[in-house]
């Protein structure tokens, strides 16, 4: 028997992801046999930061990314705080948490409404039982959901105006706390902003109380929640019906190993494997491989790593490095965060599947439902009149890691200061983990693995199932390479 012919597809530009992405697919028998993921943009932030005064990281690092800007600020501020010995007061911690949670929540909504769901309004799905609803709600630019929830997002971001001056690219988050204190009137306004956003989510996204969604504990509970009302009662319910019809719980299976650095004291840190293993998340076990990257050098842990372009390097196909945790490929993001934290639904889904398109989207929406009530509590805990920022700490030399959970997963800044200037700055972003190229052992990154087996229909040049898998990770390519 002659082997089936393999055809190559180069897919790009990949839009509705943040930044630049190209995917090369080897297709055999109507399925992806191999995928190579290319990050085609290099800007050189790790070089730009070298030699700058330490505090300049707070200006430059956020500008790596317009959608995870606050996450980058937090990572930089945390690293500098450890080196300088700064201890933000309670109000400062709560405010920084509110700003970070607002970015996470807004990003989850942006991803769902603008980046992920519009693919189900594509003409190729005409005739599916949910198509008319999907088209009405999610057609790019003009769907009902876009028209309602983009304004809701904009109004929710008033929280950023109040606490951080603006978004993106704020300087409000400092190692010692935040630059803006909240007075009693502003505290009331924050609660008002959160109430309005809660109302938009509970009316249009969930058609249910946030607490009910957060309390879904099993796949069976999720399924019966989906069936408890007509499929167009809430955009999340519509997604669940689409997912069931298209089998998204079987599409895009990742490595099944998850990591999270924990967040807000609300989501626990750790690693979790879908077949049961749990461990601490230990950043000392991280190394970055550059075998397939257009970068010079050898595999190294971030504190001793460098970022030096080598555009003509043989065998390389991405500007992205290949970070590995204890030598392993891992997946990060809301699914990782929720399953590591032990959320029963996230664990039940991922234990059964290893982590798929459905699981990533459901975990993101469950997390959204968990974040808003937590934020309401943090606002109430603010104490106007007490300090929001501690005394500045004198600059000193040292090295530290700033870890944070961005919407799309674990972000780390490995910072070394010498003579109050930046002597080393290495960044591993969420999508660096998820969209890494092959390492020295030839092991594909998480997305490369997840794409294997994805169906490609005859005549498709930009396969729609591939698009679902890619976007299910909520990639942020501008963070990926920076």
């Amino acid at each position: 028997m002659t082997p089936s012919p393999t055809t190559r597809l180069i897919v790009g530009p990949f839009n509705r992801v943040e930044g630049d992405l190209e995917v090369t697919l080897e297709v055999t028998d109507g399925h992806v046999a191999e995928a190579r993921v290319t990050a085609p943009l290099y800007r050189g932030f790790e070089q730009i930061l070298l030699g700058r005064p330490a505090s300049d990281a707070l200006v430059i690092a956020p500008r790596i990314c317009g959608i995870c800007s606050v996450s980058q600020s937090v990572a930089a501020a945390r690293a500098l705080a450890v080196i300088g010995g700064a201890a933000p007061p309670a109000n400062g911690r709560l405010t920084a948490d509110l700003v970070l949670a607002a970015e996470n929540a807004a990003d989850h909504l942006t991803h769902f409404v603008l980046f992920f769901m519009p693919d189900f309004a594509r003409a190729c799905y005409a005739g599916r039982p949910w198509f008319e609803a999907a088209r009405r709600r999610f057609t790019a630019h003009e769907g009902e959901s876009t028209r309602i929830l983009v304004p809701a997002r904009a109004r929710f971001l008033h929280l950023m105006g109040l606490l951080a001056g603006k978004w993106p690219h704020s300087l409000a988050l400092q190692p010692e706390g935040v630059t803006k204190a909240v007075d009693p009137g502003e505290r009331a306004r924050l609660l008002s902003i959160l109430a309005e956003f809660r109302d938009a989510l509970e009316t249009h996204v969930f058609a249910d109380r946030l607490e009910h969604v957060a309390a879904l504990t099993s796949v069976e509970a999720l399924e019966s929640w989906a069936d408890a009302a007509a499929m167009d009662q809430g955009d999340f319910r519509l997604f669940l019906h689409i997912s069931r019809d298209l089998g998204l719980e079987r599409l895009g299976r990742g490595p099944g190993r998850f990591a999270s650095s924990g967040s807000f004291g609300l989501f626990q840190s750790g690693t979790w494997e879908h077949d049961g293993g749990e461990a601490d998340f230990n950043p000392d076990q991280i190394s970055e491989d550059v075998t397939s990257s257009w970068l010079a050098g050898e595999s190294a842990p971030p504190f001793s790593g460098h970022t030096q372009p080598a555009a003509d390097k043989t065998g390389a196909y991405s500007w992205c490095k290949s970070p590995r945790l204890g030598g392993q490929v891992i997946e990060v993001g809301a699914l990782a965060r929720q399953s590591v934290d032990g959320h029963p639904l996230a664990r039940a889904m991922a234990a059964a599947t290893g982590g798929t398109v459905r699981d990533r989207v459901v975990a993101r929406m469950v997390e959204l439902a968990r974040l808003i009530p937590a934020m309401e509590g943090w606002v109430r805990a603010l104490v106007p009149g007490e300090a929001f920022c501690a005394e500045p700490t004198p600059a000193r030399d040292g090295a530290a890691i700033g870890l944070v959970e961005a919407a799309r997963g674990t972000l780390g800044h490995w910072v070394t200061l010498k003579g109050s200037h930046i002597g080393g700055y290495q960044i591993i972003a969420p999508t660096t983990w998820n969209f890494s190229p092959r390492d020295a052992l030839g092991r594909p990154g998480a997305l490369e693995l997840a794409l294997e087996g994805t169906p490609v229909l005859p005549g498709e040049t930009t396969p729609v199932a591939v698009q679902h898998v890619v976007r299910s990770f909520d990639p942020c390519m501008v963070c990926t390479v920076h």
Partner: protein
Amino acid sequence: MPQNSPYSVLWLQAASCGGCTMSALAADDVGLVKALGRFGIRLLWHPSLSEEAGTEAITILDDVAAGRVALDCLVVEGSILQGPNGSGRFQMLSGTGRAMKDWVTALAPKARHVVAVGSCAAFGGIPAAGNNPTDAVGLQFSGWSPGGALGKAFLSGSGLKVINIAGCAPHPGWVVETLAALALGDLSPERLDSLGRPRAIADHLAHHGCGRNEFYEFKASAAQPSDRGCLMENLGCRATQAPGDCNIRRWNGYGSCTDGGYACIACTSPAFETPAGPFQETAKVAGIPVGLPVDMPKAWFVALAALSKSATPQRVRINAHSDHVVVPPARRPSKAP
């Protein structure tokens, strides 16, 4: 006031962080698409918002490049990367095997108007900081020098130079109102400053309307982050020199950089990314800030500052060093009816 035929915008992200789009997405609290739609502006393609991916998107770009589809406006967000060695390989447009710099130079002459959104596309911006490892430039400027990716002689189809909506990230209103002015036929060359920035924005200073104005008047200065005092003397604020109506309008409903408690870093100016010292510290010579208001004689500033410091009410002096109002304004005793 939609026109009969929509004003078409093709939006490309060069070496950007995507922040200009993220900012613009909150335009007027209704979103970019709707805010532009009110002026008959239609997005032909936007990398974050449109349905078309892969070959569908390339077809749109090809049609514009070949002149098969007329284009009113090319918007570019992000710096143009010329490296390594002039190849542009630091940013290849996915799926096309072609450098983004070559796409931009091919598409720009086809557009009636070319708009740089953000300081990266305008002047090079953050990627051009330090030793500029990627040879990042703006569309028609490289820092303060005319030139950039398109060259200083470039004129778009309408005869205008590149319009620079500077800012990192720019206010969404700047994007909407500038595109609206173009769609309405209202943006003549005299409405742009010498750096191609719309004067509707750039004729103001970020200082105008600053909520810390009383502290500025008395030179009652913040000493550390979260202090309510003026940020100019110690904490690096450049608002008295930075073009922009930042404090005349609100950001994200309520804010601005200075209201948020941190320095204006003059992000609407070329080369803001490479200050002489730390961003958050004011450069001084003999105790006097180097970056004084541009059109004020230094001797006057020093004399006025000394006078106003000596006249500072105790209320202002104390509140300047607190994160909340410690001493409220004095009230006149109420008169008996």
